[in-house]
Every structure is written in structure tokens, then in C-alpha cells.
């Protein structure tokens, strides 16, 4: 039995966050792909509370919730820091990672798949949230400074998934003129080798997104 196992889903940004963390630390692990429409009994056993991916299992002990898993990875293994060492900087990193999860991703996702007034409202909410991130990254290569850290890993949806979805649904939200810092960050981010290796193929994601559009416009 592998010492480190990871239950994930290939298209999930939360899942890929964990893989980025493991790769950053050079941890060898067994990856188990979950069918989210037919979750395995093993997954449900390891995460009975939320029944979701990702779940990391280390020596038989499960850890759930991607940001918590990333902190665990940082503490359990040597290697490049995922969180800064300074307590104030750590508090800051946790703040922005949670901000991304709670204030950026939901309206950004909603803006992609809604129409009319609902889309306009979600777009405005997302725009406001992204403005804070735009200011936060100002002058730095990454949110983590010179190297990728917790916030950069947490922002994988913004740097990759969202850009693809925007293109497919015809949404203009994270534009170069409004968010030059974020766009530059996204470019640098996706160039990093261990980020590149942990992103789902663009065409496969695009197919999923096109499928969502088709399902939405299908007659009921």
C-alpha cells in the first residue's frame, strides 16, 4: 500500500491544488481518480462529513479540504515552503486563500453559467473581488513573493480554469486593461513547470465547459 494516496478528480481545481502541493515537496503518491457521479465507498469512508474530493491519505489517515491539506503537506514534509514562516505573513496568506475560495470563485463561476441580470450581478461581485487581488499582487511576481505559495496555489482556478471558461462562454471579466497585474500573474504562473504539469488539458476542460452550455440550452 502506498504511503501517500490522493483521491481527486482530473477537472477539479481543488484537487489540482493538492497535487501541486505534493509535487512542490517532491512527495511520491498514488493518485486515485474519482467519478464524482458515482463516488467510491473508500472516498465516502475517508470523507464522511463532506463526501468530496480532494482527500489526502497519509499512512492510512485521511485529511480533507484542499487548503487544510496544503497546510498539512507543508508541515509534514521538508522542501520549499508553501506558507511563509513569519506569523503575520502566514495570517495574510490564509486570509487571501480563503478570500479566493469564498469571495472570488463562487461569483466568477456563476458569471460563466448564468444569463441576464443574474450574470450582471455575479460579474459585478466578481469584479469587485478581483480588484482586491489585483491590488494585493501589485509589484510582485507571485502572491507568495518570488516563489509560488499558498495563495498562488489557491488561485489556480483564476489563473487557468476561469480564462478557458471566459473564452468559451464569451464573458469579458478578467481583462488586460482592468486587471493588468492579475493577467501578468496568470501568465507567469502557468509557465511554472510544476504548475504546468498539474493543470488539466485545455481541450478536455473546454469540452466540459461546452457540454455545460449545451445542457443549459437543451430543451427541457
Amino acid at each position, binding site marked *: 500500500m502506498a504511503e501517500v494516496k490522493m483521491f481527486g478528480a482530473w477537472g477539479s481545481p481543488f484537487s489540482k491544488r493538492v497535487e501541486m502541493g505534493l509535487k512542490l515537496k517532491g512527495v511520491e503518491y498514488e493518485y486515485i481518480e474519482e467519478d464524482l457521479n458515482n463516488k467510491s465507498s473508500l472516498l465516502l469512508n475517508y470523507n464522511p462529513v463532506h463526501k468530496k474530493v480532494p482527500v489526502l491519505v497519509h499512512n492510512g489517515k485521511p485529511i480533507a479540504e484542499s487548503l487544510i491539506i496544503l497546510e498539512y503537506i507543508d508541515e*509534514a514534509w521538508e522542501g520549499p515552503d508553501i506558507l511563509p514562516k513569519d506569523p503575520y505573513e502566514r495570517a495574510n496568506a490564509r486570509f487571501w486563500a480563503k478570500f479566493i475560495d469564498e469571495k472570488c470563485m463562487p461569483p466568477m463561476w456563476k458569471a460563466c453559467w448564468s444569463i441576464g441580470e443574474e450574470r450582471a450581478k455575479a460579474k459585478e461581485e466578481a469584479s469587485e473581488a478581483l480588484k482586491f487581488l489585483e491590488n494585493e499582487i501589485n509589484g510582485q511576481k507571485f502572491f507568495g513573493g518570488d516563489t509560488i505559495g499558498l495563495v498562488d496555489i489557491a488561485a489556480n482556478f483564476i489563473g487557468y480554469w476561469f480564462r478557458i471558461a471566459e473564452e468559451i462562454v464569451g464573458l469579458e471579466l478578467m481583462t488586460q486593461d482592468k486587471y493588468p497585474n492579475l493577467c501578468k500573474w496568470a501568465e507567469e504562473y502557468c509557465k511554472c513547470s510544476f504548475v504546468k504539469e498539474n493543470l488539466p488539458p485545455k481541450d478536455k476542460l473546454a469540452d466540459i465547459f461546452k457540454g455545460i452550455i449545451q445542457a443549459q440550452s437543451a430543451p427541457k
Partner: protein
Amino acid sequence: MSEEWVLLDFRPSMFSYRVKIALAEKGISYECREEDLRNKSPLLLEMNPVHKKIPVLIHNGKPICESVNIIQYIDEVCKDKNGLQFLPSDPYEKAQARFWADFIDKKLHVASMKITWHKTKEELEEAEKEMIDCLKLLEQELGDKPYFGGERLGYLDIVLGGFCSWFCAIDLGLGNISIDAECSKLMEWTKRCMERESFSKSLEEPHKLHDFVVQMRERWGLTNKY
């Protein structure tokens, strides 16, 4: 350099309570500034421009926002009176404590808000069921230990500790259920915690919290009788 700690606070907030408990457990002296949430101070807006919410802890002029971040920050910067920390040293135990803290904020807090603001009897009953389901899971996590932290108070006790007055207020009649009847172990834990000075000094008295919620609901035209 002398340490300066300021807490931007709103007395009835469960997130504020837990930060106060943490500060008390570490023996940190701080200045407490009460905010009027209908008229937020320039300091609050400057220190928490993103969420504009309390609690905010300002340490030597630098703000830390979000209660779980604040508690972890305090824990990393100061040891308590016994030279100990809230979070365990083992990474797995730490992850478990963080997981349940996250669960409390995502699930239990949402249920408690629904109980506070329910508009119909059905909404109240549904929210109460949600809350009891959360508490039963937490009871399982507690097991036979006196505290979530084991023999001594830990991170999760403090995070859930913000709700202690609330649990008592529910049993005073805020809801139609009795937490004591449904989750007696958790109420034992609640009473055990409230005997600690850090809790009794930080938390609002349950009957005052009860009255505050009832008055707030009346102000918003929500019925308190079914």
C-alpha cells in the same frame, strides 16, 4: 518594544467571543474597542477594507482579520501561561483541528444564523435539525475527552467556545429544542468551558444573549411565538 494589542469588537458576535477567549487564555492584555456595525469606524474600514467586519486584532499597528486566522496568529506568536500552544504539534492532529474549525464555520454557524433569522416555523425546525446534526458530529469528535484538545483546552475548544453562550441561550428558549436533551455530552463540555475564567469573562451571559436575539427579531418584525 512594548506590545500593543487592540481588538475591534462587537459584543454579541460569536467570532469576537472566541478571539477574546484566545487572548485571555494567553494572558494578553488588550484594548477592546466596541464597534457600532451600523456606523463602522474609520479604523475598522482601514484595518479590514476587504470585509469591513469584526473581529479585527491589531498587533503593533498591523491588522489580522478573520477569527480563525487571529486565533492561529496569537497561537504562533505567544505561548500560553503554561508555555503551551492551542494547536497540537503533530501535523495530522493539527489538520483535524483545522478541519473541524472549518466545519463549525461552514455548517454550524450557518445553521445558527438560520435559527436567529428564521421567518417561519418550518425554517426554524429545519435549521434546528441542521444544528443538532452538526453538534452530534462534534460530539463524536469530542468522544470521552474533557476537551477537544484532550486533557487540556485546545484550538477547537476555543473556536467552538464562541458558541457556548449561544447553546445556553437556545436552551433558554430561543429555539424549540433542548441541546441538553439531544447532545448532553456537548452541553457538559459547554458547562465545563464556561467555568473557566477566560470563557466567563469573554462570553455574554446566556440570558442576555437570549434577550438580545429576541429583541433584534422583534425589531425586524419577526415573530417569536409559534
